[in-house]
């Protein structure tokens, strides 16, 4: 009887595959990334290594001793006291408690303070509250403590913001108006994030984490890159992490450029150098999980993309490995076997500087 190994589907469901099937899934997943990103496939050795990791008998696996990397925490405090439908477990606690729990009980290498809405724009009216929380936390914390939020440029469009929704304008074939709207929103996004971070940095934040950059497409990335550039010019010592929302920058506008590079359609290995140029210290690449594919396919695809980004980057890359990204199944409670295998593969094969 042929031996079958317990893997996962992209939605977390258990699936049993033979070694041959695992290898073919890895080749297909890696090939898909190579084709889309126009990057190298995984080598034969890397494919074998990935298969070996996926077929390890233990429930949890880990990196070889000495290969550990810093594990950082997007969404940070909200993970414990929040419960927003995509993260957070709703434990009544203060954000200080959450920060210190991560530092002293969980073994986190860095931590992040965030607002319950987790977007920069809504922080503006409550920034004093955020500064106060940052000051209290920094008095007690030892590990680096960021302020983190999403650029979330969608909040600048109607009905949430002042500019006409480009999605509606596009559907009405008002393409130039849609582009104008995106450009205006990007300017406001830059202005707001810089303003918020000026306050938080004055309150002792180690730095900023731009989480889910480009969620609203290329203009969102344009606004964020300009915010990074401005903050870097103002604060040479600020820790700046720029993490992405998806694997490819959606071309909602299509013509915006940063440093002479068109932003629309960029894949992780093309995004990383721009983050460095703007002044980020760490880049957070993302690769989406396809829920209909196996963990072998998804992880091979993610490792192929991330390996190329790590190689192209001049700054450290901390790969995003939350629910539904980086080879992790799209499930609120991602299985430990899938998470630890993905974690090990990203460090040992893709060569990431952190997670």
């Amino acid at each position, binding site marked *: 009887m042929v031996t079958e190994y317990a893997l996962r589907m*992209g*939605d977390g*469901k258990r699936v049993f595959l033979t070694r041959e099937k695992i290898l073919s899934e890895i080749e297909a997943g890696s090939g898909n990334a190579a084709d*889309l990103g126009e990057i190298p496939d995984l080598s034969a050795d890397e494919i074998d290594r990935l298969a070996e990791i996926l077929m390890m008998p233990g429930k949890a696996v880990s990196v070889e001793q000495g290969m550990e990397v810093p594990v950082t925490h997007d969404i940070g405090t909200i993970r414990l006291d929040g419960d*927003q*439908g*995509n993260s957070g477990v709703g434990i009544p606690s203060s954000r200080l408690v959450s920060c210190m729990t991560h530092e002293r009980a969980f073994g986190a290498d860095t931590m992040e303070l965030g607002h319950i809405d987790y977007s920069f724009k809504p922080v503006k009216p409550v920034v004093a509250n955020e500064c106060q929380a940052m000051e209290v936390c920094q008095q007690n914390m030892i590990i680096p403590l960021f302020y983190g939020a999403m650029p979330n440029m*969608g909040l600048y*469009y109607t009905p*949430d913001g002042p500019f006409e*929704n480009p*999605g*509606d304008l*596009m*559907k009405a*074939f008002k*393409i130039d108006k*849609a*582009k104008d709207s995106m450009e205006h929103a990007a300017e406001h996004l830059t202005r707001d994030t810089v303003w918020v971070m000026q306050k938080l940095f004055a309150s002792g934040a180690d730095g900023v984490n731009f989480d889910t950059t480009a*969620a*609203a*497409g*290329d203009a969102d990335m344009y606004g964020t890159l300009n915010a990074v550039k401005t903050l870097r010019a103002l604060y040479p010592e600020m820790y700046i992490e720029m993490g992405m929302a998806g694997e*490819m*920058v*959606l*071309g*909602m*506008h*299509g*013509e915006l450029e940063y440093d002479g590079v068109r932003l*629309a*359609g*960029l*894949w992780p290995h093309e995004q990383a150098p721009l983050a460095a140029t703007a002044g980020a210290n760490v880049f957070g690449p993302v690769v989406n999980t*396809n*829920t*209909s594919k196996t963990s072998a396919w998804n992880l091979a695809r993610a490792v192929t993309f991330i390996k190329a980004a790590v190689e192209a980057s001049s700054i450290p890359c901390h790969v995003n490995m939350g629910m*539904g990204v980086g080879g992790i199944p*799209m499930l*609120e409670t991602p299985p430990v076997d899938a998470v630890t295998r993905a974690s090990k593969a990203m460090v040992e094969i893709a060569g990431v500087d952190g997670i």
Partner: protein
Amino acid sequence: MADFEGSLHEVADAVISCKKEKVLEAVEKAKAELPPEEIIDKGLSAGMNQVGVLFERGKLFLPHVMMAADAMTAGVKLLEEGMPAGSREKKLGTIVNGTVEGDVHDIGKSIVSTMLQSAGFEVHDIGRDVPIRNFVQKAKETDADMIGISALMTTTLQGQREVIELLKEEGLRSRVKIMVGGAPATQAWADKIGADCYAENASEAVSKAKELLL
């Protein structure tokens, strides 16, 4: 690049170029050689499908998709001028698309609407944070063939099930197809709530809508 031949190839390439004048020029030329139905199907639509593929691959962007769709519509109109009224191209189907109540995520759903519209469906995008009843009302009002329901949070995902349940209560379920999507949605979830299909992304939404409605 797709493998189109002769004048059909030229029509498809013109659509991919997103330029209306080029499309009209290519259609005018093809008209002399081929029946309008074939030009629409194997030239214009084939070109538009390729535009969708290039969008997913990051080679073309949303404004291009809209320009290509506009150019394709102009090409279809030109061909219809010479066609008998009964044989003129009809919309592929009518789709109501929106994000469920309590969920303000808009962008992914809007891209899906745009791609469906560009592919030739009549799309009624009812926005985000849409009350369950509004999906059903809009479907009735437009005599929709399909409802697309988006949700980006695990807490709002239940709204997709509620739309299906309300359609059943109203006796409309058998004549309206349901497509679900959004980050936490999966094929297993679609099966569980009795949706007709799950789409991973915008181009898959177009191909699955075509599978179900054509």
